[in-house]
């Protein structure tokens, strides 16, 4: 079975560039200030793995972790 991915946003590093929300809207949510957090518990549904890595590699603050479980 393929490994499952989870995304996580470090709230101390996130500055609200919102690149993750633009690139992977299914995986991230923004609060009223525009700062990001993972949608739900961060589990990446099958088929969206590329988007998770894309969000991570475009975060200017290096605030996103993709964890392989």
């Amino acid at each position, binding site marked *: 079975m393929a490994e499952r991915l989870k995304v996580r946003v470090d709230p101390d590093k996130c*500055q*609200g*560039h*919102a690149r993750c*929300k*633009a690139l992977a809207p299914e995986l991230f949510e*923004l609060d*009223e*200030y*525009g700062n990001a957090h993972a949608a739900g518990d961060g589990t990446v549904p099958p088929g969206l793995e590329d988007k998770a890595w*894309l969000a991570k*590699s*475009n*975060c*200017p*603050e*290096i605030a996103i972790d993709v964890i392989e479980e």
Partner: protein
Amino acid sequence: MSDVDQPVAHPPVTDWVHDFDHTDPQWTEDPFPIWDELRAASPVVHTKRFLGCYLPTTYEAVREIANDTEHFSSRRIIVRDVRPEITSKNAAPPITSDPPEHKPAKQLLLPPFTPDAMKKLEPRVRAICNELIDDFIAEQRVDAAARYTKHIPVRAIAHMLGIPESDSDLFINWIHMILELGIRDESKLLQAVQEMTAYFGGHIEARKSKPSDDLISYLMNARDKNGNPLEDTHVMGSLRLLLIAGIDTTWSAIGSSLWHLAKTPADRERLIAEPGLIPTAVEELLRAYSPVTMAREVVKETTVSGCPVKPGNMVLLSFPAANRDPKMFPDADKVVIDRRENRHAAFGLGIHRCVGSNLARMEMQVALEEWLKRIPDFRLDPAGTVTWSQGTVRGPRQLPFLLGEAM
């Protein structure tokens, strides 16, 4: 105005590594080879001009400084010939604020600028773009800066602030006085600030008896964590910031993007064929032609990328130079229109991330989409000259195009 305030001409630069000057005509015209030369020399270089100023040349050095609010203050954010006494803590919060004042001032401005808020503004921006295009589409020779790029951000921010879009020329002139003429001529800057203060004062007064659904009323009604309204000087400072920061920055970014597309038919044709790629292209154009250079003031001795930096000096925080660092970006000197990994710093890094980044991105995207839809064929007019703004914000101020397939 007294003659004492006349600007002093800068001697031409002959040694960029030890004597750089971001107002030199050579920098204005083509800064990229200069940055490469400086980066090859050191991650941090210094000039005695501007009463002493450092320039971090690598992405890493820029990131270090942007994230270090202990040694680098934002109380001065433009590198100028003079360094007048700071008389107000409310110059233009939050961009001129340091911790701990920074966070509450920033949080106040964030909600009106979220991506969702920008979606609501998008139809108005699309209409503005089309109104502008209607006006010149029948012509063959067009200055795209004077007729298009210049007007989009100013009208959008006027719309958000709730001030007449028809006052645009007034705002554009103030910004020119503050960001360009003001570097060398203090009196121009002071005059512009005075005029803006009087202008906004009138709009604030009018809203006291008749509140409206706009950013000016939003700031007037805002409360701090103790439930107190903001000081008048804070409201005024933030309004100044929104007007100044929201205009020639995005005007420059849209202009540089169209300039690139005018001289790069392959990229233009690809975006017309694949409009879905425009958001990715916008990020790459932001990286390659980042308009905004910020500044910090060194307030405590430290080191950056191993280089010592001393208090009393300014720092030219060049996000544009960081974005051209080949250690961070493969093929940094090329525009790769579909670049997938792009941690560019065009909107800054750290706590001072541009509050209007979502607005700027939406404006760039819409401005390019509408232009390419209606004007798929255009190129630089060989009979004209492209000119670039000087100093803190870089973008084309004259952009002569030939429209259509003719000639």
